[in-house]
């Protein structure tokens, strides 16, 4: 049997690796996406004081430390059974919205943008942020840098540090927003709204206005019919900070809606001997392998799935774009809901709609009369025991679960991180991309890496959490071997 190894690094370890096996006819028999490392936070956090988790688990990922910080902080609320004051919850959500703006901005412009602005077949050396700037102008490059910098300043102002924030505490937040700082936050939020609208316009002009890109988005290669997961508020609108977890089936019917603390009743994780990362799936459906459809427990947790799982957006401009998104790519089903969009590349558009929502939500919170309230902590009075909570990380639902002794020293920890939710879907996308380019022993070398990488990139996989590659910049190497195992050809990028 022929084997094709797609290796991020010539020495196999550290990042991600793809092994593609061909059958005797030379078609793809199977593809394995291997995550070759585990850092083991679940175990080395045992023995630590629970209240340190927002500052320890942020070190899982320097790209999305705010997500771990917030999931951990909310888990401490649950652990100590303490309800933060309304102002603290608003301040946390303000901080989190600013984080979403910078994170989604980085992804779209630095990682996804190049595929669309420069084209999926541009050489890897040009498909980067500098290439985007060259193509569309330096002012866009400046606007992107500005967006990142001004929001990191807000993250630092509210959270204490620009990377690895520190302010989360059970029952609240360590420091209120000073009234004299509020106007600046509002100004940043206004700029963010403008920037998000500009980005959506750019997407419309460059991508939707180009028939070739529309065709690419709708291509079967990048389509998977799976369940969709997302956090929704009381109106079933998208929420990043808090709410219920809603899962819809591939046709758009609500499959289950549950409180985040009940995650283990609904999600199970499957281990395989050939990888360090586990594959979560819906318990209520069961694991039926790496396949699409209603009978498969595979689900996704991405900007696209969040829109699919919700009935709309909670802010007015984002809701307009939500309508445009679904009237363009979908139709309403018998249940009155839009049918889920399963084109994975539409995730990039969904991400920009979320960017706008985050900016609008940030502005709402920055102008909320309560946002500068000094009352941002509820004293802790209950003994800790067990708590679980979640947030929507940019890359999927992020769940933390802690158990402690009566002194609040951790005895057990469980984490299901954003990207992990998408491990099976990513593996499926990889296989499908390979199948579209390898047939009867003929390997279409040109574009193989690009297609596989684009399949990856839609999920914005943060294997920073697992393998240190910054989202999207997946180092890949393809080694093509004949049936005897002899190397015929090697292709690689970013490694």
């Amino acid at each position: 049997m022929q084997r094709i190894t797609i290796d991020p690094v010539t020495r196999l370890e550290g990042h991600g690796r793809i092994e593609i096996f061909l059958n005797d006819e030379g078609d793809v028999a199977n593809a394995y996406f291997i995550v070759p490392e585990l850092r083991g936070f679940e175990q080395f956090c045992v023995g630590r004081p629970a209240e340190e988790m927002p500052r320890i688990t942020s070190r899982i990922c320097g790209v999305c430390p705010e997500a771990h910080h917030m999931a951990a902080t909310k888990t401490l609320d649950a652990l100590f059974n303490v309800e933060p004051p309304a102002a603290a919850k608003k301040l946390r959500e303000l901080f989190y919205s600013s984080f979403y703006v910078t994170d989604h901005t980085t992804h779209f412009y630095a990682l996804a943008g190049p595929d669309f602005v420069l084209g999926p077949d541009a050489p890897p050396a040009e498909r980067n942020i500098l290439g985007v700037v060259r193509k569309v102008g330096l002012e866009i490059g400046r606007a992107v840098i500005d967006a990142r910098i001004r929001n990191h300043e807000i993250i630092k102002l509210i959270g204490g540090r620009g990377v690895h924030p520190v302010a989360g505490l059970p029952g609240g937040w360590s420091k209120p927003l000073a009234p004299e700082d509020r106007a600046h936050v509002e100004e940043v939020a206004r700029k963010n709204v403008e920037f998000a609208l500009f980005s959506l316009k750019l997407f419309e002009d460059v991508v939707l206005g180009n028939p070739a890109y529309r065709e690419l988005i709708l291509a079967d290669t990048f389509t998977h019919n799976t369940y969709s997961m997302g956090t929704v508020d009381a109106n079933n609108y998208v929420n990043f900070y808090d709410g219920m977890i809603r899962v819809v089936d591939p046709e758009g019917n609500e499959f289950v809606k549950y409180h985040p603390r009940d995650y283990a009743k609904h999600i199970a994780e499957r281990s395989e001997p050939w990888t360090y990362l586990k594959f979560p799936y819906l318990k209520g459906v069961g694991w039926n392998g790496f396949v699409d459809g209603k009978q498969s427990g595979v689900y996704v947790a991405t900007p696209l799935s969040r829109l699919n799982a919700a009935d709309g957006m909670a802010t007015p401009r984002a809701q307009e774009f939500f309508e445009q998104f679904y009237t363009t790519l979908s139709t309403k089903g018998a249940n009155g809901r839009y049918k889920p969009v399963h084109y994975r590349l539409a995730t990039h558009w969904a991400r920009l709609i979320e960017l706008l929502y985050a900016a609008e939500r940030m502005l709402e919170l920055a102008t909320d009369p309560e946002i500068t309230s000094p009352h941002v902590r509820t004293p802790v009075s209950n003994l800790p025991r067990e708590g679980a909570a979640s947030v929507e990380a940019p890359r999927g639902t992020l769940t933390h679960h802690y158990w402690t002794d009566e002194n609040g020293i951790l005895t057990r920890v469980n984490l299901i991180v954003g990207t992990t939710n998408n491990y099976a879907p990513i593996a499926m996308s990889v296989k499908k991309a390979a199948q579209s380019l390898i047939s009867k022993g003929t390997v279409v070398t040109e574009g193989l890496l690009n297609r596989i990488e684009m399949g990856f990139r839609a999920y914005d996989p943060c294997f920073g959490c697992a393998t240190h590659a910054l989202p999207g910049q997946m180092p890949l190497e393809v080694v093509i071997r004949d049936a005897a195992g002899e190397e015929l050809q090697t292709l690689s990028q970013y490694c």
Partner: protein
Amino acid sequence: MAKPTFAMYWAASCGGCEISLLNIGEQILAVDAAFDVVFWPCVADFKYHDVENYPDDYIDLCLFNGGIRNSENEELAHLLRRKSKTLVAFGSCAYEGCVPGLANLTTNQATFNAVYDDCISNDTTRYQQPQVVSQVPEGELRIPVMYETVRALDQVVPVDYIIPGCPPEAHQISAVLTAILSGAQLPAPGGTILGAADVALCEECPLTKDVKQITRFYRPYEISPEPGLCLLEQGLVCMGPATRGGCGALCPQVGMRCEGCYGPLAGQDQGARMLSAIASVVSAGPPGMEEAAQAAAIEEAMATLADPVGTFYRFSMAHSIMGRAKTVDG
């Protein structure tokens, strides 16, 4: 004249060092203009074999972030050491192991058991730990072996400079790069610290010390500290006295204790230094108190200090006098 060459690499890290570097803002464009980037996996498309083909000492400046957790990390450390004139341990992981170094308090087997066996969300119909070599219907698959101990970069290869911090603060990165770009003479190499202070964090902390003694420690959720006053003197285990300054004392200014992410001062063990700082702040009771009662009071105060090892060595485990927890087979 040819531009100086630049490389950046991540080993076992979280990506935060790269994000912090990006947070220097438009100065990144100056770095891009001044240097010829010859290896930077997160930004540009260079191959490992390109690096292998460079002559020795070809890279003028190499920023290495991340600790050494597996054989790939180790191999790249050796390769980049050989190819770099100046090798910088960039950030706490490369400098001293950082939070992932807490894994040195446990074992891989315990970690595997926690993740793959005794986990509430696992598929209860099968328990499967990863195997270095496994058989699938189509053939054989291999995954790397994890090292049992997390090491700092200088425990693997000699390091010229260290930029501490988890992550290094952008203004410090900026200051170091500005100095390098201006052609300023750097201090002599040999594991020399750059981008940080030579004194303890307390020296740059705006909170006021009162030379106050305490009878117990508090967990951060147990008290709301008085604004403007030293956190350690209010019973919070602020690592400031045992930690190198340079960040600008950011955490204490939002009412949170210093975690110690800039590591120990020169020649010190962070935990040992913290213990002595704690000894000086814990009250031994009123004057004239009997020795036994004094000892009991101190013991009582110390009993309120949660997880001293994980707190004192949150970042510096790899270099600590402990190194790692002993495993059963030693």
